[in-house]
């Protein structure tokens, strides 16, 4: 297993590639992804925080700099933000490699609702690894995609408390919540 981070030296932000690699290695161990080579490409020209996976050898994770940033100290790296962002995307990598998620659409074909349910599922599992997560932030995101109502909150709770869902089960929880208010 190798972990590579590019660029090795940052010019737009004050990030540390070795620090990013160390955090990634810890998470890779935690999620049993040691059999894969991973490269993390940080796009430091934008403050946005989008992430994207390209499967191959190595598995390439494209991350915009906002995903690792301390928003209270612009351009500085945040250890919690780096851990949370890498944790989310690596859990998504693990899901994608498993047969339970074989039918999940490609990233570019995911709807905003599908992105929200998958992210909720990822951060919920992260929170059970002693990684500090602001649950309300993700509940707000879920409500933005499913509506501000009880059915939406029940669906969120169900996903938040689950560990072994398939893509179809995730979709089913989401669809039920949306159908109940239509």
């Amino acid at each position: 297993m190798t972990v590579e981070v590019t660029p090795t030296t940052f010019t737009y932000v004050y990030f540390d590639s070795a620090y990013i690699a160390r955090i990634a290695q810890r998470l890779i161990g935690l999620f049993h992804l040691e059999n894969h080579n991973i490269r993390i490409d940080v796009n430091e020209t934008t403050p946005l925080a989008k992430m994207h996976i390209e499967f191959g050898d190595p598995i390439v994770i494209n991350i915009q700099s906002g995903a690792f940033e301390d928003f209270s100290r612009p351009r500085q790296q945040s250890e919690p933000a780096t851990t949370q962002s890498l944790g989310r995307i690596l859990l998504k990598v693990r899901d994608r490699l498993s047969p339970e998620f074989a039918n999940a659409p490609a990233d570019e074909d995911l709807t905003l609702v599908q992105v929200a349910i998958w992210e909720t599922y990822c951060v919920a599992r992260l929170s059970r690894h002693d990684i500090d997560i602001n649950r309300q932030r993700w509940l707000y995101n879920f409500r933005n995609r499913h509506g501000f109502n009880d059915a939406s909150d029940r669906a969120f709770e169900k996903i938040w408390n689950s560990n072994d869902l398939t893509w179809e089960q995730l979709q089913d929880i989401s669809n039920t919540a949306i159908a109940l208010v239509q």
Partner: protein
Amino acid sequence: MRKFFPVEDLARDERFNQITMNDRMADQRTAITTDSRPSRAANRIVPSRGDASDAARGLMHGIFVGEIQALEGAGRTCWDFTTGEEAPFELKLDMARQCWDEARHVEISIKLSDWMGSEIGEYAENTVLFQAACSNDPVLRLAGVNRALEGLAIDVFTTMKEFGEVAGDQYLEFAEDWMLADEVTHVKMGSDWLRKITENDPERRKKALDFQSVVDKLFSYGGTRSESQESPIGLARRFRELAGFDDQEIDVIADLSLAALEERKAAVLEAQAAHN
């Protein structure tokens, strides 16, 4: 009590980290792309944006710290000038009423931030708003704070109110709508007092309007606010009209904002060329 309080001495607890406009300008990154396809270029804070929730949370925190500084600015105007000689009593009464509104807005913003999953101090506090309130002429403060700053608040609240409306978040929609109504009143106070005090002093009025233009340009820095969908915040023409801006004044701000956006795009192209 001390008069004319410098921005560096604003009281904040350890949760806050303050940055200046210089800090912001030193950040060469930008969300604005040179890709002209509408789906790629749009940055407006709307629910259909992929990172809508986080973008709205960041803007909400910006509103929260802006309200604190607006409260501090209006409060200073009540205190810094001698009643009757430098500022009419009725003007101070309006500023006192504004303090009351801003204090309420701070509390509403904290509750909305909780609701959206943000923490106080999660984002940096740009102190540019209070800096606009440090002039030693009350008329310049009215132009810089009530017309430029509160004008921006109208644009921001309209963007957030529409966000809540489309997302179905009634708390956000209603709270922003109520605060928006107050901001329209604050801008109108500024417009009315500016006209009244400088009625027979065209030079002072010009100086105040020039100062407002400088502040408006600062608030448009990087194309943050304009009528283009490439800007995160839109220009709320209708509510600005209600606040006393005439069409020509709104056109000037629209042009200025668009110029700031184009300036930023040119800088992005230049930086990309240098990077490659």
